[in-house]
């Protein structure tokens, strides 16, 4: 069964490579990147070799902890897990989870990132050779277990997050995840802002690493350090802890696989809705007036509150701004005014995040297309549904930032620039969504799985839309920068210019996207379904 599953994986890959040449280019670029990283790995290895066992173990624990964090969160943020081996695909074959697990497990290790990670850990782990064969053996086992922990943790986190978001408590879960994410950053930010980076590194980090070394987040990497110092018992129980953790993750993953083999995903659980929200929408300020646009708005408003794929992107918009505020600012000891980047970044992230908006409809789009020449109305409804929550959120972020800096006289400029960035990025995204759509996860599919065949086309669309947005955004932000650096009076210019440019770009993008939609309506369905 292992061979069969792995063969499916490889055959899918081969067919895709043969069908789309750019996929080979993406794969080649990935391999090239891995090769380019090799010298730095070797430099790190030789640097590590010159240190004593304690520092070496600390460095490995730190690296492994950061990598684990990455493996757990990245698939959730940039839908990255290749779904060619999505367990649900095996549903009709009548195989048990126990039968396909070994195959899925092996296939999970046979991805480019996993292979590169294995290579990295092997290279760095080999430094323990200088402490003798026994220590090297401990290092090999420990790091192998760490590798398994990371790869399994990525699967489990994607499976859990997917399940949570398709459950009936999805809305609550999204809010909770955002709150927990912010809350987890807060103490780190607080300590960093209070003590400064150098003090934190000197005192707190050492303590944190010591604690991590006793947990599954670093025990496997710390084991050889203990062995090198003669503490074989310490090495042994750390290995045992790590092995137990891998086993636990494996069990949880297997349970998730077993569940998805029998449970249809994306069911509403028979929930009833007594009000026809398309015909009698709840009153909201920004809702469009005309029949078709209002209907699209109502449909998207429902999606933004109940569709796991939309909820996942909603939760994702906070990541970049919060990271900047909580980590980048204190670490580089930036002036408080740099906090103004937060609402600007939030606005840009929200707008750019909609660059593939239309594809989220998947093949259900047919209803919009056969109903007439509706490009303008469809895009107006779509964008209004985003702007409906994005504009208040950005304004709140502006006010929050101003409260933090205490420089309320910067308010007009900041609000203007943020609204401008939001409008410009949404306008660009609307055009990109019609011009360069690529396949998004289908309704009911895991919001974190990349549709087979989407990664390369997605890359092109992401690149083009971000270049377009980035070349327009500076014009909107420039007056605000002048307000901060030259004269406060520029703030009112920034306010006016931002709002005018934002509204103009929003309306212009909408118009262009609408007419492109009409012109390309016969090609849209084929591009995204």
């Amino acid at each position, binding site marked *: 069964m292992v061979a069969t599953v792995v063969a499916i994986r490889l055959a899918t890959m081969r067919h895709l490579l043969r069908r789309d040449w750019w996929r080979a280019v993406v794969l080649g670029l990935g391999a090239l990147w891995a090769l380019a990283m090799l010298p730095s790995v070797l430099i790190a290895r030789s640097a590590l070799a010159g240190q004593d066992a304690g520092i070496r173990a600390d460095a490995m624990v730190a690296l492994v902890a950061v990598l684990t964090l990455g493996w757990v969160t990245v698939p959730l943020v940039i839908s990255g897990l290749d779904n060619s081996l999505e367990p649900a695909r095996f549903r009709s074959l009548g195989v048990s989870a126990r039968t396909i697990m070994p195959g899925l497990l092996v296939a999970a290790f046979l991805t480019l990132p996993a292979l590169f990670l294995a290579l990295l850990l092997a290279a760095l782990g080999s430094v323990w050779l200088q402490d003798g064969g026994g220590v090297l053996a401990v290092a090999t086992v420990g790091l192998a277990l760490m590798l398994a922990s990371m790869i399994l943790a990525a699967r489990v986190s994607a499976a859990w997050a997917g399940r949570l978001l398709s459950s009936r408590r999805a809305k609550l879960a999204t809010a909770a995840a955002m709150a927990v994410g912010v809350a987890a950053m807060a103490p780190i930010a607080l300590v960093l802002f209070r003590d400064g980076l150098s003090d934190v590194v000197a005192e707190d980090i050492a303590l944190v690493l010591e604690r991590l070394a006793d947990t599954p987040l670093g025990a496997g990497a710390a084991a050889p350090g203990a062995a090198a110092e003669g503490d074989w018992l310490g090495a042994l129980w750390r290995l045992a802890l790590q092995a137990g953790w891998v086993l636990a993750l494996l069990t949880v993953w297997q349970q998730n696989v077993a569940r998805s083999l029998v449970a249809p995903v*994306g*069911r*509403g*659980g*028979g*929930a*009833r*809705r*007594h009000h*026809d*929200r*398309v*015909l*009698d929408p709840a009153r909201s300020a920004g809702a469009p007036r005309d*029949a*078709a646009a*209002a*209907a*699209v708005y*109502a*449909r998207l408003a*429902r*999606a933004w509150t*109940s*569709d796991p794929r939309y909820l996942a992107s909603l939760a994702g918009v906070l990541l970049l701004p919060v990271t900047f505020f909580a980590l980048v600012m204190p670490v580089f000891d930036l002036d408080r005014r740099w906090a103004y980047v937060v609402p600007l970044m939030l606005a840009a992230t929200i707008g750019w995040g909609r660059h593939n908006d239309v594809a989220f*409809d*998947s*093949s*259900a789009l*047919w*209803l*919009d*297309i*056969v*109903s*007439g*020449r*509706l490009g303008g*109305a469809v895009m107006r409804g779509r964008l209004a549904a985003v702007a409906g929550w994005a504009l208040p959120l950005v304004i709140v972020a502006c006010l929050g930032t101003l409260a933090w800096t205490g420089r309320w006289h910067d308010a007009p400029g900041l609000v203007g620039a943020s609204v401008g960035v939001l409008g410009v990025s949404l306008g660009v995204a609307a055009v990109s969504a019609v011009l360069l759509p690529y396949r998004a996860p*289908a*309704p*009911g599919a895991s919001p974190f799985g990349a549709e087979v065949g989407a990664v390369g086309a997605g890359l092109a669309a992401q690149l083009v839309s971000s270049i377009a947005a980035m070349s327009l955004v500076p014009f909107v932000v420039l007056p605000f920068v002048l307000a901060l650096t030259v004269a406060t009076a520029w703030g009112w210019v920034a306010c006016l210019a931002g709002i005018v440019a934002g509204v103009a770009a929003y309306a212009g993008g909408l118009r262009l996207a609408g007419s492109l939609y*009409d012109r390309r*309506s*016969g*090609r849209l*369905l*084929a591009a995204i*379904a």
Partner: protein
Amino acid sequence: MTTVPALALRGLTKRFGATLAVDGIDLDIPAGSFYGVVGPNGAGKTTTLSMATGLLEPDAGTVTVLGADLWAAPESAKPLLGVLPDGLHTFDRLTGAELISYAGRLRGLDRDTVRARRDDLLAALDLEQAGQVLVMDYSAGMTKKVGLACALVHAPRVLVLDEPFEAVDPVSAGAIRRILAAFVDSGGTVVMSSHVMALVERLCDHVAVVGGGRVLAAGTLGDVRGGGDLEERFVELVGDVRDQRDLTWLRQS
């Protein structure tokens, strides 16, 4: 009046990579007819119907709906059409009732009209109970029925239905047949694809047999089937399974 065909396809062609899916199809569907399109799997039926309803841009050829060019003037041609595609998603976060309202509002109908027609359609298609349930919880047959309701809500003049009876239970199928027959009687046109020859013989007055991306035969039901029945004629036109091999290992004893 009757000289303008309800749907006229001229030289419709579509190529996917190396495969020529539809190879220059010419077809006139007379107004007021109940037209069946039959063909083996992969014959290009769905591709043809997609091009005839604005879902897929043809590489070449034209489509006119009651004289209006679909691809050149969609704003005048699309309102005349009611469409039910096969094998595509629906907006599954809406309830059945909301989906019908959605289709009606997209067509520009006012609220009161949509409300009345929505309730009529839910009752006629036996979806009253399911009207408040999300479409994602529907069975395949219920999804078909609500899709048909969406195609009907704006009272089109031409209905293009891809496999409208697939997965639909006999009771609902009877209701759909009655609705479609009454629609044709009142002067409407129905174009329907199906794999079930008996159904086509029972419902349709015209039929086209499509194979390999071409029209193999088209005309009134009597003309196409000649003396025999439609299934025999169909197999004769598209050819039988080439290797009629006995699956001896499948025998139970």
